[in-house]
């Protein structure tokens, strides 16, 4: 009985013109997503390699480690091309200096606004929009449409248990939609190595999980559609209702979540923080200036001192002050950044929490977690860069004899050794992406949520149909 109903459901859906048309559109979009993803990875990879080479090249001929202009870059991740997440929004280039702020710039969108426009072609977005619409289109009239067409009545004139019927319907329509989708997805996967995306086994594993998430997501909307179809009298009303739900889940909730969390937690802007830092650092400088003046008048040139000796003493004092000030400013800066980061984290947590009432957000979060392009990417990158900065600073200090390229250092003494530096001596920065296992474990919460959504709507559809008036 169950098999018969599943078979019938498969045949009914697959044989319809509606299916042929919508499936073609979905398949095309999915293929495009893979293709564009593969291509854009290729472009990002060449950009990255060119930038790394250029960085070394522009140091050629320099003789002073203290004067180099060093940049590090975020390496593109293979799955980032399919599920861009924030990968295109964050700065991928960071100028590393021994002092001062580390600022990342040159996001993909900044450089190439076209990408901002075409971001919709990434796999996550296509799944998010297309799979939900696909499910709604075939689920909205699953029950009430059969009633309107009169076939439900005839079916239930037979000894058909209702639970079997609804199970068959849910399973059959899920199979009818999901199995054909495997074709473009598999072709897309084959495209990746052809397009030169270096997929490793961990990447494949994560990609498989992203696709599985997509299927869970499809299941959520399908079960929801059948549920609503069993709760409403007319297919026109279930369609309308589902459209509203779709707009809320796909378009409104994710945006509202950001707004609400913005209200709930006050995160100072970067400008505000910089303003505060500058204010305090100016204040410290003024204090130092007066200290310097006081030092000057309190410790004038003694009789035994030459003028040069006095200048050295003075310069040392200045250097001491500057070092102390730098340290203080750095500590303050760290404190402000840390504070901002904490607030930001709270804000993100609220935003993500709220947005999780929408299956679309849950799917996005799971997919970006798996792809390693979630919000955490930015933090990971920044942390690694600032760690790298420590190595870099140590290296430069060694090379320059302690003053780390500070403006006051250098001077005429160095002019003797005009030997050019070797940029390859620099410590190498390479972004160390989290392991597949770490990423998978991060996605588990959202995978669980998708499963719960499925169960809830499945049970809903099941119970609603047991009470359904099949006349």
């Amino acid at each position, binding site marked *: 009985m169950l098999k018969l109903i599943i078979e*019938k459901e498969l045949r009914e859906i697959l*044989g319809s013109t509606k299916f042929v048309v919508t499936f073609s559109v979905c398949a095309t979009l999915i293929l495009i997503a893979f293709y564009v993803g593969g291509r854009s990875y290729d472009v990002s990879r060449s950009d990255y390699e060119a930038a790394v080479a250029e960085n070394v090249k522009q140091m050629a001929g320099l003789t002073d480690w203290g004067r180099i202009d060093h940049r590090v870059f975020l390496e593109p991740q293979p799955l980032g091309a399919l599920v861009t997440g924030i990968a295109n929004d964050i700065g991928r280039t960071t100028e590393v200096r021994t002092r001062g702020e580390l600022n990342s710039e040159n996001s993909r969108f900044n450089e190439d606004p076209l990408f901002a426009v075409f971001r919709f072609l990434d796999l996550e977005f296509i799944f998010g929009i297309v799979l939900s619409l696909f499910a709604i289109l075939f689920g909205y009239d699953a029950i009430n449409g059969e009633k309107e067409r*009169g*076939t439900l009545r*005839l*079916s239930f*004139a*037979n000894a*058909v248990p209702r639970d079997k019927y609804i199970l068959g319907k849910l399973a059959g329509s899920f199979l009818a939609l999901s199995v054909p989708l495997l074709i473009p997805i598999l072709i897309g996967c084959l495209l990746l190595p052809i397009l030169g995306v270096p997929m490793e086994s961990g990447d494949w594993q994560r990609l498989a999980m992203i696709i599985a998430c997509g299927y869970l997501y499809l299941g959520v909307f399908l079960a929801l559609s059948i549920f609503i179809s069993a709760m409403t009298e007319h297919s026109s009303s279930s369609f309308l209702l589902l459209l509203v739900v779709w707009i809320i889940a796909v378009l409104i909730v994710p945006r509202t979540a950001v707004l609400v969390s913005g209200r709930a937690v006050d995160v100072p802007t970067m400008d505000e923080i910089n303003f505060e830092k500058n204010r305090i650092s100016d204040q410290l400088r003024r204090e130092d200036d007066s200290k310097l003046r006081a030092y000057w008048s309190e410790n004038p040139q003694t009789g035994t001192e030459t003028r040069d000796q006095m200048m050295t003493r003075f310069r040392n004092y200045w250097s001491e002050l500057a070092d102390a000030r730098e340290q203080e400013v750095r500590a303050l800066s760290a404190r402000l950044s840390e504070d901002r980061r904490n607030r930001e984290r709270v804000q993100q947590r609220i935003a993500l929490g709220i947005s999780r009432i929408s299956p679309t957000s849950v799917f996005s979060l799971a997919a970006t977690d798996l792809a390693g392009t979630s919000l955490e990417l930015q933090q990971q990158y920044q942390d690694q860069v600032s760690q790298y900065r420590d190595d870099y600073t140590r290296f430069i200090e060694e090379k320059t004899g302690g003053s780390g390229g500070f403006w006051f250092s250098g001077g005429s003494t160095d002019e003797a050794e005009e030997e050019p530096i070797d940029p390859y001596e620099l410590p190498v920065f390479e972004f160390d992406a989290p392991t597949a296992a770490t990423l998978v474990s991060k996605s588990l919460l959202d995978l669980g949520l998708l499963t719960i959504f499925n169960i809830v709507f499945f049970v809903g559809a099941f119970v609603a149909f047991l009470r359904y008036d099949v006349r």
Partner: protein
Amino acid sequence: MEDTRTDSPLLEAINLTKRYEDGTLALDDVSFKVYPGEVYAMLGGNGAGKTTTINLFLNFIEPTSGEARVDGIVTHVDPLAAKSKLAYVSENVMLYPNFTALQNLDYFARLGGKTSYSKDDYRRVLTRVGLEEEAHDRRLKGFSKGMRQKCGIAIAILKDAPAILLDEPTSGLDPKAGLEFTRLLQSLRDEGRAILMSTHDIFRAKDISNTVGIMNRGKIVMQKTSAELEGVDLEQIYVEYMAGYMDDAGVAAEEVA
């Protein structure tokens, strides 16, 4: 009225009453029996309660009181067992528009528990109900009402059930198909099936049924066997009942009784 048979009825309504949620009393204490090899015709105007009666036999709705029985099984107690003994043709047969006639027959036959039919069996039945050969492999989408009705009847035949419920089965059939249907009904009856049929077609009702019940406002106001109707102008009686019942139910009922 004969009730001297020793075998048991296949279809039986016992004090069947249905009041809908909105308060409409659609059936009021209706009782009748249909034995194997018999046709019971329910006549009655629109809204008389014919479809409600059939819905109760199919357990699409639950009775307010009384019971409907199929081969002794109370439908609202064990609906699946009851339905396995019932075939059904609705007023307006609707099938899967994207399936061909054969595919529809195949699906519904299997749903009815019949898995051993071959394509030829389906074609034979479709020919028997008068559906032209060329339509057998066409999708239902383009079928006329009468063609769909024929498919519906074919499905009921394929189920091979002891009892058959027909809700205005001839609506939409052309005269030729109507005549063929009458023959078909006779042969089904002669095979020993119990048939409950609602209809507006007085002549056909008189032709093929063993018992005719006239229904009005949820009550069976007259019930006569074919023997009792011999030489009687059923149309006359029917119209009188309808008119009389509407003016003054009591008087009309007295006159005929």
